[in-house]
């Protein structure tokens, strides 16, 4: 029989006993908040289809994660909002008019294949949203490359068109910056994206290394390889969205500052190469995916030197 328990029960844990009270859920919430202006701009420009695409992607992402975790018999991780973020990021990378079942299929692929198969958050080698976008782009090239014109309901006859990069005729700087041009939901409004990115930098959720390296290399390549004027190249084709939100995904990019710089430059270089020579008009998501594959090697070669080591 067990003796009577008299002692007070304290919490026993290893040092340290203080914490910076930042949590994974808080980080994901910050990124979602940073994406709200871009989502609002996308819905404002492209109307109801954009809203349905965003809702479909987020709901099916969360549902898929819940189902996968139950199937794997593991504790539910829907609470850490990473599935919501992946759904939202995927939606922002899709054209507004995409049939909803394709968007849902993309979300299922993103969560089930690109993330949960490897064991959940933190273990996926590739950015789930971008892997799903590549999957959709190759499976349904047609619907993925027809974009709604902004405010299409004003001139219903010419609803769909190609992006400026494809048609090579470019709107003025104001429209470019504000985002009054065809393209995916999240990649058009550079202003909204930069506001979101500034919020993340201030909240120290991301560091400047990847976005700056990415955009600088893109600008340099645009000058060297020619093609459209530099500012147009930078502001179109999802480079700002890719640099500030997709490439800075913690899990699939190196953790050290030096590693981040190399990763950013690599993304920029590949993006411009694919755009200039490749078959796809827009190379940003493939560039980041390929650099995700290099991330483990980069962090292996940019190991920090311990304080006092030779």
């Amino acid at each position: 029989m067990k003796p009577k328990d008299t002692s007070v029960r304290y919490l026993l844990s290893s040092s340290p006993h203080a914490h910076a009270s930042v949590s994974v859920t808080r980080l994901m919430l910050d990124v979602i908040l940073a994406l709200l202006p871009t989502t609002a701009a996308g819905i404002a420009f492209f109307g109801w289809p954009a809203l349905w695409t965003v809702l479909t992607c987020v709901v099916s992402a969360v549902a898929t994660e819940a189902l996968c975790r139950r199937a794997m018999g593991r504790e539910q991780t829907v609470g850490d909002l990473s599935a919501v973020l992946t759904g939202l990021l995927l939606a922002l990378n899709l054209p507004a008019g995409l049939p909803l079942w394709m968007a849902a299929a993309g979300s299922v692929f993103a969560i089930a294949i690109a993330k949960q198969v490897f064991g959940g958050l933190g273990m996926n080698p590739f950015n789930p949203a971008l892997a799903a976008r590549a999957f959709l782009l190759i499976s349904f090239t047609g619907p993925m490359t027809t974009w709604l014109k902004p405010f299409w309901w004003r001139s219903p006859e010419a609803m769909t068109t190609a992006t400026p990069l494809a048609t090579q005729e470019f709107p003025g700087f104001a429209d470019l910056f504000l985002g009054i041009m065809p393209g995916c939901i999240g990649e058009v409004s550079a202003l909204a994206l930069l506001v979101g990115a500034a919020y993340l930098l201030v909240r120290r959720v991301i560091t400047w290394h990847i976005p700056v390296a990415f955009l600088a290399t893109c600008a340099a390549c645009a000058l060297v390889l020619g093609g459209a004027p530099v500012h147009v190249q930078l502001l179109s084709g999802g480079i700002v969205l890719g640099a500030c939100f997709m490439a800075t995904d913690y899990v699939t990019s190196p953790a050290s500052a030096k590693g981040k710089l190399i990763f950013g430059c690599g993304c920029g270089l590949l993006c411009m190469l694919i755009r200039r020579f490749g078959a796809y008009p827009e190379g940003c998501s493939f560039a980041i995916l390929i650099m995700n594959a290099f991330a483990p090697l980069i962090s292996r070669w940019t190991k920090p030197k311990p304080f006092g080591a030779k």
Partner: protein
Amino acid sequence: MKTVTSPFRFKGGVHPDYNKELARDLPIETLSCPAELVVSLSQHLGAPATCLVKPGDYVVKGQVLGSRTGFISLAVHAPANGIVKAVEPRLTASGGQSPAVVLDTTAPAPEGVDPTERVLAPLDWQTAPREDLLRRIEEAGICGMGGAGFPTCVKLNPPPGKRCEFLIVNGAECEPYLCADHRVMIERADRIRTGVEIMRRVLGDPAVRIAVEANKPEAIAALERAFADIAGDVEIVVLPVLYPQGSEKHQIYATVGRVVPEPPALPIDVGCVVENVGTVAAIADAVEKGKILLSRVTTVSGDAVATPKNVEAPIGTSYADLIAFCGGTKGTPAKMISGGTMMGFAVATDRIPTTKTTSGLLLLSERRVFRYSSQACINCGRCLRACPMNLDVAEIGKAVESDDMAEAESLHVMSCIECGACSFSCPAYRPLTQHCRRAKGTIRARLAAARAAVASAKATT
């Protein structure tokens, strides 16, 4: 003597909320001798003292209870008069048990025993030879009071061929909640000055740097008054408020800009000796007044203590007595910590005695406590930026989680100083410090086994 701000800033470090205002301005109060004292025989780094007393003996304050065994060890003295009730293993703050002498201080002194305190003959530090000063520091049982407890007589006696160019007095006290050193600097600045003079004579007149964090202006003022007219190269270096500024390697870098190489290198290899302000004051008492180290200042604080205090209590006082002296608990404490919140030990019971290295006792309520949930690492790099030793902590954590100690060793885990900055800043609440501790323990055990195998192989051939 001049006051400078530190020109060097090491990479990494974190800013926990310091909560020093709870006990910063409270003067040191003395706890009179409690009914029972438990004097641990291994209060210092190195071999425990060999016990010289048996149950039933009557001992007088200052009398030797356990003598020094081996080079890195120290004698242990009776903190008060009393009868030895028992010599048995007793709980220690770090979770294990170590042999201790239990004294009942209420017992009357039998006749024929002189109950006055045993005091050593005072020495004049200006003229006494270096060896006498060193032996006095050893006889007084003085060890590092910052937390490690390294015998000071060994640290102040560098091996031949190694010269001490800088004596660094560690007044950083970067641990949250703790104000013991802060109060010692304010109220006993003159003793610190004498202690520095003594140590300069022992170490062959090195340059002196007194390191104090910028959040202790009163301490800096008090030290400036005490050291106003001191001769020689003495500087007060004001350090930026950053945890872990008090770590030996980082204090050396912050004050003199030298980098201590990886283990097994020691600070003396770069010509520096770092000593805690409490220890320096104790050296002054030992030489000038012949007083043995029998009590120390401990901060009892936290939001679950009725009235936080800085208490000077005899060594061996139980935590329960300390808490009672501070008016008992307030609300229901969720966690009791011996030391500060960053490097202190969580303890399960208040029947644990204080030792020469107990710098603090904290009682935290449920609001101030968090739980490790060890979620998956999202590779955010916060622990990399936080680590003052610039280690790749995320990879070490993953390697240790999949039992790959060889990879952990190749990631330099043996350089980890277990300061806790990584677990502090991890958003996934991963116990990274515990991972590093486990890796270091396993690697040390393997190295010890290898040494034993080599020794036994040499013995058999």
